[in-house]
């Protein structure tokens, strides 16, 4: 009999969470842990483990083959470049206090794609060898250059399956912009920090710009419905908005997905919000109370199911291998393979955060240029560190099969990538999210189970997992 190696983590007061390398998990108690550690498993233990894919007769069995397959499925294997983040301009008509890219002012010159850069982007699109493509326009404020957006979209006609995301502050909805928004394959992504007061404080600065933003948000929601529009709040962890106010800002607009995102320690934020380098327990408490609030709201008002986007992603990754297209959380997280960022000057970065770091003058993580390519030594150097697979902390962590690697985040916060994993903000944040997720998974509160089932897209109730050892 083969019993798989198990990783263990306390889960609640008396229970422990056990998981194998494929991410199959169960709860057990201290007595079981003792039997497991001292090789004193009973026949009942063995049969319990067998039923959960944790023990097998021999290595030629279906169970073991399935386990190997499960381990392999936990490893991201990007195929082809099919996701481009494009920055047609770094100029912006707002000046948010935590702007991660240190945007350029509206009048400045030299921060838009040149003709040569546009031509190189179009050539790149012609060479893409993917059936489905996703292009995301970032900035600056990309709608300052609708002509560039339109040129790119036009060039994608040959793809049967394509989607475009315009990340915009919604300050301008002129004719050219509306022509782009009206396309059924275009999605609108904007920022919504909560109440008008908070939004103005953080972003729009003047009452007039605030009115324009909220009017335009209502306008696109009316015109297209909430399926086409998403909004993200950026929160000051030291001074977060009231949970109820924030929830209602989204619920009242029928926007179901809320990505509770603390200020990213990038760009202007490094100077103006130095405390965003690390989140403390207060932020984690806020996060949990926010999730508990939407659980209660979902239970009392089933007409809309609100979710915290990142928690939903983590839950899906716990149960289901293969959710590897969220590029902030996957492992390995290969550099410059299935997605790249093309900046306003044509420079290619592995991630949006990498371009922010370069812009802040912290470290230049450019891997190439859109005209000359990015199969470079710089990419190879970064790629060496793009996995958590052999990290001594991660190898022992119950959550490794679900977790990811973000070397750019390490560089942003610490200027190095060899800080012991448990000392990093990335690790602390994810240990917390996964601990929290498992508390929810093993909760017997009907409201919690209802929300979990909706977030995981089930038709009915959450299946029973409660059997433990």
């Amino acid at each position, binding site marked *: 009999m083969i019993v798989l190696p198990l990783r263990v983590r306390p889960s609640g007061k008396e229970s422990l969470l056990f998981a194998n390398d494929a991410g199959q998990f169960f709860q057990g108690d201290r007595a079981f842990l003792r039997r497991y550690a001292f090789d004193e498993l009973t026949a009942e233990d063995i049969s319990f483990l067998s039923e959960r894919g944790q023990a097998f007769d021999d290595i*030629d069995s*279906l169970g073991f083959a*399935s386990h190997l397959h499960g381990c392999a499925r936990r490893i991201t294997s990007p195929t082809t470049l099919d996701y481009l983040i494009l920055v047609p301009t770094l100029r912006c008509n707002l000046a948010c206090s935590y702007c991660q890219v240190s945007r350029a002012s509206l009048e400045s010159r030299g921060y838009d794609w040149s003709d040569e850069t546009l031509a190189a982007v179009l050539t790149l699109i012609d060479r893409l060898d993917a059936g489905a493509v996703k292009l995301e326009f970032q900035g600056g404020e990309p709608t300052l250059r609708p002509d560039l957006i339109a040129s790119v979209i036009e060039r994608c006609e040959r793809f049967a399956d394509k989607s475009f995301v315009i990340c915009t502050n919604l300050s301008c909805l002129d004719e050219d912009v509306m022509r782009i928004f009206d396309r059924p394959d275009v999605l609108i992504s904007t920022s919504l920090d909560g109440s008008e007061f908070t939004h103005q404080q953080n972003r729009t600065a003047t009452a007039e710009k605030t009115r324009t933003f909220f009017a335009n948000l209502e306008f696109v929601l009316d015109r297209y419905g909430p399926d086409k529009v998403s909004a993200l709040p950026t929160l000051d962890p030291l001074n977060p908005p009231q949970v109820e106010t924030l929830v209602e800002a989204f619920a009242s607009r029928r926007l179901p997905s809320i990505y509770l995102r603390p200020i990213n320690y990038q760009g202007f934020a490094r100077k103006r919000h130095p405390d965003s380098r690390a989140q403390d327990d207060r932020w984690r408490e806020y996060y949990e109370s926010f999730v508990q609030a939407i659980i209660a709201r979902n239970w009392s008002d089933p007409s809309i199911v609100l979710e915290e986007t990142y928690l939903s992603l983590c839950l899906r990754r716990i*149960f*289901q291998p293969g959710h590897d297209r969220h590029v902030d959380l996957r492992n390995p997280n290969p550099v410059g393979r299935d997605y790249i960022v093309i900046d306003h000057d044509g420079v290619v970065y592995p991630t949006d955060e990498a371009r922010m770091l370069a812009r802040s003058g912290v470290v230049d993580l450019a891997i190439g240029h859109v005209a000359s390519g990015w199969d470079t030594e710089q990419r190879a150097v970064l790629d060496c560190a793009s996995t958590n697979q052999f990290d001594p902390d991660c190898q022992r962590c119950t959550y490794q099969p679900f977790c990811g690697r973000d070397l750019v985040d390490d560089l942003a916060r610490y200027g190095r990538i060899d800080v012991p994993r448990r000392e990093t903000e990335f690790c602390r944040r994810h240990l917390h999210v996964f601990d929290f997720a498992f508390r929810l998974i093993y909760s017997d509160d009907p409201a919690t189970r209802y929300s979990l089932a909706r977030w995981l897209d089930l*038709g009915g109730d959450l299946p029973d997992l409660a059997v433990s050892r």
Partner: protein
Amino acid sequence: MIPLTLQARSDAPAPFVTRLSCSQAGGVDVSRLQAEANDTLLFAGDQGLIEIVGQPSAALDGDVVLVDPGAESAHRLLRAGSRHNTLMVTERCDQLCIMCSQPPKKTHQDRFAYFERACLLAAHGETIGLSGGEPTLYKERLLAFLEYVIERRPDLSFHVLTNGQHFEEAEIDRLADRRFRNVVWGIPLYAAEPSLHDQIVAKSGAFLRLERSLRHLIMAGARVELRTVVLQPNWTALDALACHVTTYLRFVEQWSIMQLENIGFARGRWSALYVDPSAEFGPLAQAIDRALLFGVRPALFNFPRCSVPQPYRKFAIASISDWKQKFAPDCCSCAERSDCSGFFEWHPQELLEKVVPI
């Protein structure tokens, strides 16, 4: 019903495969329409003349047929525009499932040579079904056929229905070949309890043999669709099966849960086997949710959409082949008819009256 075998005469000395064409476009193995009069079509090609009775030419244009002069028939192997073309490899089988829709026969006629010709004439990008009986009783011929055709026509895909009783460790490397990326093996599994599965397929040891085959298929990186027919004997064991599938068989591309077909053995045993999903859907809902939770993609075959509760309706696909599909009179007003499986031609009439148009 759409007829699959046509009354036909030919001057050819032996059976042959050809594509019927109403246009004058060129191509090998094409028989062009020469005349159409009095219910009779005359086609001519390199292999001889064909006279077909009883069909308008437009209905047959582009079909790939096997003309058998001796039997005075033309069998429509690949109907143009159909998504349900299936080639019957054999009528022999080594299981005797209690609800078998096509009870096996003892005799076997090897038609692989015709299938090869037909597949080379198939429309671009077509998915072709291979069924039986049990196709892997002729495994060597079957694998060689798939390799031969896919090598020449990499645009084609195949779906092979097999009981999975014959895959061997020694075949892992062969099945790992890139050509088999174009092949999905549709394999039935009826219960997680070995004795219950064996009882349903009427073969002792079938479950354990199937597990061995599935193990080899995982190691080969094969593509597998799991199939479960819902029956009274396995109805309450569905959640246990879902646990088994989500623990051991997460590699499958799809878990197709299927409603019974009232033909073959099932016709005589209908009252002992049939489960009415509109009366009770609970066990099925639970199984689907468990599959979804663990990332196994479920699909419901042969479930009319009005028999499925709304949250699960999106999984009920139009699975019944065009040639044996029918609808109830009330279905006319249904908004989801075009996405619905409808009913098998031979579905009990009184059950058709239970439809509730959506």
